């Protein structure tokens, strides 16, 4: 290790000035708070977050240009972050990086933040490539912990952590707003080989794919990081049957078994989940059709058409899918109307595209992995039969809840009526 300086005190304040746009705020905050905790767990340092005044250490995200930093960033890749040595205290992250948590995609915010906090505390770069303080980002590590060289470095500056002060100092570290939860083994789906539970064109035109306990976004340029469903939508279980967002009401409805959940953005509406009464449980899929502003629910070979804002006589349903969606498969895994105005059905590893007249287009079905998930053709023997990546019981996942601006909900007929 190399030493660049030290603080003349061991209780330091910090301030998070802004957060990255690529992570839910609570996830990003949890990652930054954990970055401090790595160091306070091995050295007699305490960190306290403050909202006002000038904190000792100040964390912020900026792009290529910043009026507050002469050391500009360079866009995605290359330089990820930089920090000042003691007792200056600035830590800057490149806003253009894909900051992530809990996934191999993108750049792990927690690990990079811990590295930069190391600089802010006085550590230079380590010559051990596996050390946190190595200059090059070694990628996401689910079992991340400090390297002995990192520990030796920080302890050379501030001494060893005394065992009898552990509890007191743990209390001073203000993390409890975002608890760390140890989870049971959970299969992390491989978007390239997993069949989907649900697909949804969500608020702000984001496309979400759901499988098991996980959800990820699908963009024109690639896939977003995998999040636990409950990390984005607090209170929502995994293994959903269907999901649908209505631009008409801003409501997102999730279906599983005989229950329905309603969210506006990431906040659950009061009174939910509710029991499904007027439609059958265990739905296959759901979609919003902008042409008539109705929500369609699918199960087996039938569908229900539901108006969110008017009382719907659902006793006339289900009706056969093939009567309205010509050529679409029965028992779809997922369905959605997309940005191009087309309706899509997903089943197994294939998807169907329908014209605006709801006829399946020529050339379909096509492969979901290739056309939606940006996957290259598989090389035999490189993918597990299940397509799953298994997490260990020792994995720690940040159990977080993003906040969202809620809207006032009126009393309207619902699918639960």
């Amino acid at each position, binding site marked *: 290790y190399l030493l660049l300086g030290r603080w003349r005190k061991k209780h330091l304040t910090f301030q998070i000035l802004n957060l990255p746009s690529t992570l839910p705020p609570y996830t990003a905050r949890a990652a930054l708070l954990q970055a401090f905790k790595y160091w306070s767990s091995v050295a007699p340092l305490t960190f306290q977050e403050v909202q006002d005044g000038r904190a000792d250490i100040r964390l912020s995200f900026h792009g290529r240009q910043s009026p507050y930093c002469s050391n500009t960033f360079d866009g995605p890749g290359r330089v990820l972050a*930089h920090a000042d040595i003691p007792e200056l205290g600035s830590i800057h992250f490149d806003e253009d990086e894909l900051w992530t948590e809990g996934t191999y995609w993108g750049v792990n915010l927690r690990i990079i933040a811990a590295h930069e906090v190391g600089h802010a505390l006085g550590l230079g770069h380590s010559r051990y490539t596996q050390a946190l303080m190595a200059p090059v980002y070694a990628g996401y590590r689910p079992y991340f912990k400090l390297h002995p060289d990192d520990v030796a470095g920080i302890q050379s500056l501030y001494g060893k952590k005394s065992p009898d002060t552990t509890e007191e100092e743990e209390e001073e570290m203000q993390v409890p707003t975002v608890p760390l939860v140890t989870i049971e083994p959970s299969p992390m789906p491989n978007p390239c080989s997993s069949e989907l539970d649900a697909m949804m064109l969500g608020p702000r035109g984001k496309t979400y794919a759901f499988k098991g306990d996980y959800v990820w976004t699908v963009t024109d340029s690639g896939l977003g990081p995998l999040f636990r469903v409950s990390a984005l939508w607090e209170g929502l279980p995994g293994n959903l049957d269907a999901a649908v967002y209505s631009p008409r009401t801003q409501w997102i409805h999730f279906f599983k078994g005989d229950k329905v959940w309603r969210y506006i953005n990431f906040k659950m509406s009061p009174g939910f989940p509710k029991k499904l009464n007027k439609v059958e449980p265990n739905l296959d899929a759901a979609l919003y059709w902008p042409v008539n502003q109705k929500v369609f629910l699918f199960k087996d070979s039938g569908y229900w058409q539901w108006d969110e804002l008017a009382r719907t006589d659902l006793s006339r349903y289900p009706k056969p899918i093939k009567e309205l969606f010509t050529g679409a498969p029965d028992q779809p895994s997922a369905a959605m109307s997309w940005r191009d105005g087309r309706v899509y059905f997903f089943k197994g590893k294939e998807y169907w595209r329908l014209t605006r007249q709801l006829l399946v287009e020529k050339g379909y079905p096509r492969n979901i992995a290739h056309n939606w998930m940006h996957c290259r053709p598989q090389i035999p023997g490189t993918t597990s039969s299940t397509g799953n990546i298994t997490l260990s019981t020792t994995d720690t996942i940040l159990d977080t809840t993003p906040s969202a601006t809620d809207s006032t909900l009126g009393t309207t007929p619902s699918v639960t009526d």
Partner: protein
Amino acid sequence: RVLRREEKEAVMDYLLQYGYLQKPLEGADNFRLEDITEALRAFQEASELPISGWMDDATKARMRQPRCGLEDPFNQKTLK
């Protein structure tokens, strides 16, 4: 080994930006070949790469990896 001009500039920028080469306080910015070789050797050693002093593929790949913006003061001059 011949490097394209822009490739050489990128390598020199990297070695300068991260502290493997130091601009002289006076005189021209032209570095001697032995200075560059020594800087490359320091970078390779710090990166746990084979130490050749040559700009090989592994060294190029290492320089393209995402990293921290702070210098790597691994060479003997900086340590002094």
